[in-house]
């Protein structure tokens, strides 16, 4: 899987920033409106860093990409992204033989990294509400013998449903919690960013793994 991670991140870096305006608008209603600038600057920096990590273990590629993002666009989302990538990478630290069986352990470790760094949990109206159902759906599909393509489709579908559920939630942590009940009715911007990222991963998976 070595450099494939970089190919996947390249697609994320290509496909998420064009949707920055959607993120900026959602974040202006719940946060401080910088999430659009954050994904644009952050993913640009991730892509610029690829030559340095090509050929390195997946754990290094993930960790260094995460840190590059936060260095360019330090923010709540930036440091969460960095924490997820570092913790996800630690699940396969130093290994050169990372494969499909590692996807769920990496995702679970990244998820725990997000929880620890953000001191938040599922139901608080955060990006966790998009990621948790996606990981569960992927794992379930994989366990029932589905292909990576099918499992990825299931994950994105579950993620999309999770993002929609954040609309009716009240923000319980961070900046958006200062809005209290006024946060109800707005889709969570961080959760939306996670969906955009997974949709980009999905497009890479469809383009590269459909014949397996």
């Amino acid at each position, binding site marked *: 899987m070595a450099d494939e991670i970089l190919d996947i991140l390249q697609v994320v870096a290509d496909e998420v920033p064009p949707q920055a305006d959607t993120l900026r608008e959602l974040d202006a209603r719940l946060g401080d409106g910088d999430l659009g600038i954050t994904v644009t600057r952050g993913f640009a920096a991730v892509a610029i860093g690829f030559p340095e990590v090509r050929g390195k273990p997946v754990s290094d590629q993930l960790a260094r990409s995460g*840190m590059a993002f936060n260095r360019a666009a330090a923010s709540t989302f930036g440091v969460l992204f*960095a924490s997820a990538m570092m913790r996800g990478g630690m699940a396969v630290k130093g290994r050169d033989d990372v494969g499909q069986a590692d996807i769920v352990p990496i995702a679970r470790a990244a998820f725990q990294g997000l929880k620890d*760094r*953000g001191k938040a949990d599922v139901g608080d109206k955060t990006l966790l509400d998009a990621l948790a159902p996606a990981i569960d759906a992927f794992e379930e599909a994989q366990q029932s013998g589905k292909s990576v393509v099918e499992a990825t489709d299931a994950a994105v579908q579950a993620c999309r449903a999770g993002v929609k559920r954040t609309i009716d939630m009240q923000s319980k942590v961070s900046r958006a*919690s*200062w809005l209290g009940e006024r946060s109800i009715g707005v889709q969570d911007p961080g959760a939306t960013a996670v969906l955009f990222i997974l949709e980009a991963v999905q497009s890479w998976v469809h383009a590269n793994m459909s014949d397996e």
Partner: protein
Amino acid sequence: MRKIINHPDNVEDETIAGLLAAFPNYLKRIDGTKRGLIRVDAPIQGKVAITTGGGSGHLPLFTGYVGKGLATGVCVGNVFSSPSAEDMLEVAKAVHGGEGVLFLYGNYSGDTMNFDMAAEMAEMEGLTVKTALGKDDVTSAPNEEMDRRRGVAGIFFAFKIAGAAAEEGRDLGAVHAAASQAAFNTRSMGVALSGTTIPAAGEPGFEVPAGEMEMGMGIHGEPGVKRGPLLTADEIAGDMLDRIIPDLPFSSGDTAAVLVNGLGATAPEELYILYNKASQILKDRGISVHKAFIGEYATSMEMSGASISVCRLDDDMAKLLDAPAHSPLLLQQVGG
């Protein structure tokens, strides 16, 4: 947007360049960092170092709090955005004088998450780090949810008191205790009369209609508690202290320090008019004012408005508040 700038993307770096050009005898940049600045005489061996940081757009906060008897180093973020954990780590390493590092900053999620990550990385490199947060804004969350409250201008007292404790040679535990106690004993409330524009965004993130004001609005435009017609200075001071005094609570017989802070576009005269009423109210409540600070201590670029902060003092805190301190950005005598 009407600002004296060159390009919206260069606002932060050109501000830092200007500060370094103006005060080469006070501040220097750490090699290899984008926005890490430290006291020119740092690291100071044998003394606890204080690292702070936060978004740009609040001068004299945070860079102006670097100085003798104050903070030792700062990392500067983009306007209203956190600096990165990596810059924080570099500042912590650069200021460390062998006695540990206190992270002291305002309670915003981007900052806390980046500083927490920096603290973990610093500890992996063998540094001892403790953290104290400013969370003085009474309107940002109920009293029983203090940990969700925002930090605003009242963090001034934590910088001054913890900075003096570090300068005096107290150990990290004692400097952390001084900062935490000053932060805990401080309560603030603000009022905004206009919005402000992040240069890179180009248009106001929020606005207050002409003739109106928003009580409790945060320094980045966070929602307040009440929007309505502009009240008189005496009414505003009364409303603020009605929320501040019962929140700690401050009681008759207490000694306190008071800060009336301008948000960037409010005239000093208006701050003294506010303080005139505030001092009368405190006197009527039996709270004695040890010292008053009036001026710009934490701004929000061109936002118009003000905040009042009150910090309850014991004898040790009063002594630390009075100790000498110096930063070229804090124009009013802050100690001595």
